[in-house]
């Protein structure tokens, strides 16, 4: 890399209204490259809405989003993928009838979608994206299940593949929306290791309810409440912040450790 910018993602004054309801009241967020930046907050704080804005899944009502030096505010989600933005979903959204390998192949080729428009070339050779797919399969520990339809995987495996779908695009920034939602206690540690490992090559923006994970792996934490940023800081500062404690009604924020 010739230059590493100080800020990879800069969102300023993001407003989102659904009819009369305002989900986001002018949110600012700056994410530094090669960090894990978590967004936490009670249910309904606007975390997922903010994600939708940043990844382009849903358009903004107001504000500006700059990604890697480009203004992407009005770009649709599929275009932002080519800029290096990839995301996972809170509710698992895989191609259920397609094999794990095919899911990842599609995600890997999605960065250069024109190549997928060929009605003649078969999905082998360069279009199979084999080395990336194999890499991701290894990272997810799903190599053994490469030919299994995604819908037949266990919940924990599906959640890992959900992260893998974002990873296969080799993005600059990975947005993970509650990657551990609904996971059993046994799978949590695998997921934590997986996310921690992402920081070496990517910038991670994470929504997560499991405070143990958030406090352990985040570089920066943004706390949201009712569509606004309540406070932002390092994990220790967040843990000690009175406003955060109040917003979270007691000890949820500390994960029972402090």
């Amino acid at each position, binding site marked *: 890399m010739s230059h590493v910018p100080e800020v990879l993602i800069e969102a300023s004054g993001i407003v989102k209204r659904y009819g009369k309801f305002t989900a986001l009241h002018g949110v600012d967020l700056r994410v530094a490259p090669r960090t894990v930046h978590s967004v936490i907050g009670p249910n309904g704080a606007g975390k997922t809405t903010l994600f939708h804005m940043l990844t382009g899944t849903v358009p903004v009502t107001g504000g500006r989003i700059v990604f890697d030096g480009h203004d992407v505010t009005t770009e649709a989600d599929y275009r932002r993928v080519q800029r290096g933005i990839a995301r996972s979903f809170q509710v698992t*959204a895989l191609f259920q009838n397609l094999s794990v390998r095919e899911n990842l192949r599609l995600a890997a*080729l*999605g960065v250069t979608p024109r190549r*997928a428009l060929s009605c003649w070339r078969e*999905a082998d050779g360069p279009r199979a994206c084999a080395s990336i797919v194999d890499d991701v399969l290894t990272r997810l520990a799903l190599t053994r299940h490469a030919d299994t339809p995604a819908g037949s995987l266990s919940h924990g495996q599906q959640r890992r593949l959900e992260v893998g779908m974002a990873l296969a695009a080799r993005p600059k920034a990975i947005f993970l929306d509650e990657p551990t939602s609904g996971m059993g206690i046994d799978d949590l540690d695998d997921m934590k290791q997986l996310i921690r490992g992402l920081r070496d090559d990517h910038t991670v923006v994470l929504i997560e309810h499991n405070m143990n994970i958030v406090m352990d792996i985040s570089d920066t934490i943004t706390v949201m409440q009712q569509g606004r940023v309540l406070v932002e800081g390092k994990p220790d500062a967040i843990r000690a912040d009175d406003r955060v404690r109040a917003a979270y009604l007691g000890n949820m924020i500390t994960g029972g450790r402090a």
Partner: protein
Amino acid sequence: MLVRYRFWLLAAAVTLILPLTLSSGTLATEVLVYALAVLGCNLLLGYTGLLSFGQGIFFGLGSYTLGIMLTRTSLPMPIAVVASIVLGAVIAAVVGSFAIRQKGTYFVMLTLACAQMFYFFAYTATDWTGGDNGLLDIPRKSLALGGKTLIPLETPWQFYTFVAVIFLIVFAVLLRVADSVFGRTLLAIRDNETRAAAIGYHVKTFKLVAFAISGAVTALAGALHALMTGIAPLSNIEYHTSEMILVMTVIGGTGNLFASVLGAAFYVLAADWLSTLWPRWLLLLGLLLIAVSLFMHRGLWGVGESLWYRITGKRGGANGKLDTQGDAT
């Protein structure tokens, strides 16, 4: 080799079995003509998950284009066929670009609305289409070069051979398209559109290309139908044709291209046989459609496949896992 080309070989077998078992060359040709139309529909329904009630537009359009060109100009027939294919693709792209703005029920409604508009347009433009009477006296001359007959098309069986060759070529091309990165991306879009967009695919572009290919193949079927019967009737562009193509597609089974050949063959042959027994035979067809909708979502092909696995005792086959289920909406 055998495994790789098994579906094409099955289709080739069908084109050989038809002349051996049927006495009417026209009936055999009809099977292949509708099989082409059903293939076009399957690409939308089975591969992309788009339930189009507008396939009759492209079928009728193919018939009219060929009919008008052969009755008003002295252009050779192959050029008229190619023109039908091109126009089919273009109009399908136009109709598609309207319809894919919506999903689900409203998509279906938009295709229905387009079907109605094209029907009444054909009904009104009597100078060009013959209106209610249809376009009559479409010539079917043998293909000749310099006074020498190259491909005779006089008798029904000669014409059948011509259509069978075209059918097998188109089937091979469509198999390749379905297996291409494009075809596999369509399957992904069918499975989960939101995710397909989230990983970088402009879903509408893919749907539009699928529509254009579907329209091209369906218009080719319409053109061959007009050549076969010598007329381009108003009924070819009617809503009923759309419905018939859809019913054949669902009965055959979606998601596998050879299933479309089965569906068309079954419908055309059953209609021919049942209509001699009982004029209200469509009632029986309704019962079959209910049975398919209730118990056999993968259509005749799915039933055949299950039987095959039961007999041979194995599951899956070469890429059985990638065979898709037929419950798209």
